[in-house]
């Protein structure tokens, strides 16, 4: 084959430089820390995979991982069905549409730490509307002391903050379904459940998968809100991976283990992304195959 003109590489050079400054170089620094130890004076010693072994075998890491996974699982189990349900209940036309959309978008516009602060105050037993209200109704609610209360508060806060995203994604999928499908279902005498099961759910499958992916990623990496509300407590009960990581790196200045932990954390997220990507491209391949036949 004839030698191609290689000048095109120069055109992608600016992007390569920017990406290496913003992503590759910092990442390599982390990799660098993860395989070395230091006693100050900028002296480093090669330790190989020691930090990784330590992290993977440490009770602390595994507990934080379990907590984070449990948190993500609960978030998905609540937000996805609830989001679908709200999207189904939203009006498809008329003046109600813009009202609902704006209402749904509002929580998404609030910065993370503000959400945390809102709920931190909202749940306080002494002055918070929720905390004080529950207390005066006779409930023994205190998220700073009770593990269960802390989890409930964090989960309700996340549901409040992020269910809208699932709703908006599902809603966009639902309004894209042509009216004729509903007409055909009425002619076929389909029940409300059949319409959902055989028309709506298959048609919103793709956006739903994106919603699951986004909600998983975001809840798995959650940091700011629990940090503001509970600070990881009571005890370590709401210390998720990200909070633990920051404590280790910034609080204790254990750069080696923190770097190793970051990489493990990163790889877990990468793995999940890859799984989702594979599922989604297999949907695409199916769609393309049926298109081709058509």
């Amino acid at each position: 084959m004839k030698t191609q003109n290689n000048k095109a590489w120069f055109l992608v050079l600016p992007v390569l430089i920017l990406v290496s400054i913003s992503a590759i170089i910092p990442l390599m620094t982390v990799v660098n820390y993860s395989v070395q130890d230091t006693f100050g004076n900028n002296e480093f010693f090669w330790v190989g995979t020691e930090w990784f072994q330590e992290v993977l075998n440490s009770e602390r890491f595994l507990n934080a991982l379990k907590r984070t996974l449990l948190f993500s699982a609960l978030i998905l189990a609540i937000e996805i069905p609830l989001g679908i349900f709200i999207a189904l209940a939203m009006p498809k036309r008329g003046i109600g549409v813009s009202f609902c959309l704006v209402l749904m978008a509002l929580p998404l516009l609030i910065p993370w730490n503000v959400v945390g602060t809102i709920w931190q105050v909202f749940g306080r037993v002494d002055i918070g509307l929720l905390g004080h209200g529950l207390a005066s109704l006779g409930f023994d609610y205190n998220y700073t002391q009770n593990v269960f209360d802390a989890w409930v508060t964090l989960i309700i806060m996340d549901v409040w903050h992020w269910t809208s995203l699932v709703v908006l994604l599902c809603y966009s999928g639902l309004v894209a379904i042509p009216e004729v499908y509903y007409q055909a279902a009425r002619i076929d005498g389909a029940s409300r459940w059949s319409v959902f099961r055989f028309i709506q759910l298959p048609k919103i499958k793709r956006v739903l998968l994106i919603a699951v992916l986004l909600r998983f990623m975001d809840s798995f990496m959650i940091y700011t809100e629990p940090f503001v509300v509970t600070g990881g407590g009571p005890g370590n009960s709401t210390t998720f991976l990200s909070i633990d990581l920051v404590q280790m790196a910034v609080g204790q200045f254990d750069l080696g283990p923190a770097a190793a932990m970051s990489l493990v954390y990163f790889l877990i997220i990468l793995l999940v992304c890859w799984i989702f990507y594979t599922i989604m491209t297999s949907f695409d391949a199916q769609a393309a195959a049926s298109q081709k036949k058509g």
Partner: protein
Amino acid sequence: MASIELKNIAHQYPSEDKSGPYALSSLNELWQDGGAYALLGPSGCGKTTLLNIISGLLQPSEGRVLFDGVDVTDLSPEKRNIAQVFQFPVVYDTLTVAENLAFPLKNRGMAKDKISERVAEILSMLGLSDRANEKAHSLTADDKQKISLGRGLVRTDVKAILFDEPLTVIDPHLKWQLRTELKKIHQQFRHTMIYVTHDQTEALTFADKVIVMYGGSVLQIGTPEELFETPAHTFVGQFIGSPGMNILKANVDGALAIVDRIQVALPGNYRKIDDEVELGIRPEYISLSQTEGIQAETVSIDDVGKHIIVRCRLEHQIVSVIVPEGTSIPDKPRLVFAQDKINIYQNAVLVRPTG
């Protein structure tokens, strides 16, 4: 199976303008039990609106719908027991082909063995037996539309089967096959069938009676032959046939019409008409001659394969003529109008001769 009666049906789609146009205006029709009807008309003439009113997907703004004399206007499509096939394929993606066909039966609580028996029949009729267990989303558009058709035909107890341009997405060679199949099904089971289309060939080959619609009203109901020979409205004349009927401005007095200062003999006596009068004659019923007839001038010649379409100019007006293949066409032909095939229209509506 049922007769379908429409009483003063009118429909106006909701819009801000209350005095806006009616999609349908004041229809009164009675369609016989077991008939095959075609609703024919250009896009936007209200065909689909009318179909959806009959099936109950749409509530008419005015009027009542009666099946076998029973008022069903307020009943849902399910309660009316209607089957309807839509223009674009609707399949339940996650179900198999067989499950798709079984879906309407299952929803009505039919016994399992009856369902599988009926589904097998429909599958073999549509030629989909070997794909029965494939997922519906993997099929081609053609096959998907076959499934849609199949779901319309699978129930035997329906009052009527409505088709909304069902063959639009189907390949031409399959179109013929499916249309013949539908006609056969109609002859076998005598369901009342209503078939919406803007394709005249489809309407004329499928239906016993064709209903021509335009601008939300029915212009004519008739057999294909009636529509061809004596269109009740100039629109029907022009819409049916290829090319459509020649509509020429004329003056009529007694048994003579004057077209572009030329006298044309009419099939009967007409009273004197002062309004706008037009003479209609099909291109099939005009022949070219060297010796007799109206002097004209050839404007264009289109050889469409099975015959030749010649456009001629009289003094001002253009006339289309269909002549057989191989006819030699002079520059200045003479046109002979078949006298008994001429129709006269007053304000676009057919006028019958008085004697």
